[in-house]
């Protein structure tokens, strides 16, 4: 009997007229995670990697790209399979998909960007346990069509990425005084005059606790500006 109900629901779903690719609803899938529903600052997920690999901007960039890739492709695959996945093993299926994608990303990094891969070390592997990704699979991709799911993956990946980048820029500029770019070398952001007056790079910035404080400051700024996030008591 339950299958009959499920089939009926599917029919109802199919009857909904097709939306354009970038309808306001679809656009919201990308813009929401950037601010109102940010995975790091609002849902407070993926904090572990945000603390660990934001010492250098280039690490943060590679990590962000990896997460965007895994979230998007994973959402797409789960969404495409959503009507065939047996519900009893759905979490395992999601885990297998995310694990496979992460291993592929890790192998590619090891082959093409060995130095960065070494610095990211276990954190690429830990994308598997990143709650952002499993959360999106279970909460969104299991119940939505492929295209919105892909957008949702990109959106959440970008929401994760910009926080990571913001934290990394602050930490590298104040911790090392310069940001190093591959192929370009270090670009100094603080004038040399600062150092003559006794300014010193802040070593605390390089340590993980500072990342937590910076994320906290970002959350504070965001909450004070975004009225939707202010809790009413």
């Amino acid at each position: 009997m339950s299958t009959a109900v499920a089939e009926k629901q599917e029919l109802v779903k199919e009857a909904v007229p097709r939306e354009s690719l970038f309808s306001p609803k679809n656009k919201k899938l990308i813009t929401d995670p950037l601010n109102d529903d940010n995975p790091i600052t609002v849902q407070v997920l993926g904090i572990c990697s945000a603390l660990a690999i934001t010492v250098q901007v280039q690490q943060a960039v590679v990590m962000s790209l990896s997460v965007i890739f895994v979230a998007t492709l994973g959402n797409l695959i789960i969404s495409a399979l959503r009507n065939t996945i047996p519900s009893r093993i759905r979490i395992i299926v999601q885990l297998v998909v995310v694990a496979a994608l992460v291993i592929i990303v890790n192998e590619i990094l090891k082959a093409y960007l060995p130095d960065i891969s070494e610095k990211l070390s276990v954190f690429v592997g830990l994308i598997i346990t990143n709650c952002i990704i499993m959360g999106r699979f279970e909460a969104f991709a299991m119940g939505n069509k492929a295209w919105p799911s892909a957008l949702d993956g990109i959106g959440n990946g970008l929401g994760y990425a910009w926080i990571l980048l913001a934290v990394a820029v602050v930490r590298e500029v104040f911790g090392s005084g310069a940001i190093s770019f591959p192929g370009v070398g270090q670009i100094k952001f603080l004038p040399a005059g600062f150092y003559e007056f006794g300014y010193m790079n802040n070593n605390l910035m390089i340590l993980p606790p500072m990342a937590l404080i910076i994320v906290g400051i970002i959350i504070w700024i965001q909450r004070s500006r975004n009225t939707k996030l202010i809790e009413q008591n």
Partner: protein
Amino acid sequence: MAIDKNSNSYTFVFAIILVVVVGASLSYASLTLKPMQVENSIQKEMMSILNTVDVQAERSNAADLFYTNIKERVTLNYKGEVISQRSGKIDPKDVQDPFNVDVQKEYRSSQLSIESKQFPMYLAEVNGKKLAIIPMVGKGLWGPIWGYVALEEDFNTVFGAVFAHKSETPGLGAEISEAFFQNPFKGKKLYDESGNLVSIKVKKGGADDTDTHAVDAITGGTITSNGVSEMMKRTFGVYDNYFQKNRTQLTGL
């Protein structure tokens, strides 16, 4: 016909298909990327070996510099006898090649008896100077530490030393990979006046400038420092026989 998606057989079939597809794609990815990864780790090792003898190499020129500076690769057994010798291009499949001996794996392996362990060594000629580079592995506080020590022709004077670690405490034990810790090793001696091996000690509380067998330890990194001492003493003990036999003259005594 509608398939019952809640049935056990459907669940099993789905799981099997999924695992086969995922497994196949992962092994394909692994196989196609393997050669590049091997290449990368070879370059990395070449870079650290060259670093010990003051040759700065980048990934792009590591292989060229390695082949011009490192003349010969030798593997010794635990008694310090030469068991294999190679020169020229490295073949990643040649298990006899000293370069392919995984020192770390052999050190940790509990099944491998001391008799079957291999101890590689690199003989270099940099700017007319003959040097021997010895890889070593030991234990830090949290995980493995390793390094390369380059010796001059007398197999006594240290020309340069490079250390690295997997997971020592940042700011404490992790400082062994910094230049300020490694530089003082230069010019230190392994043997005392009567020709006995004393190795180099990483000394807590600071080493005398005149002491040719000790360097300063790292404050707060005692266990890592002791690990470095132990690693050097044990490794040089193995190479001792070779050194005694092959040295031309014992300088600096």
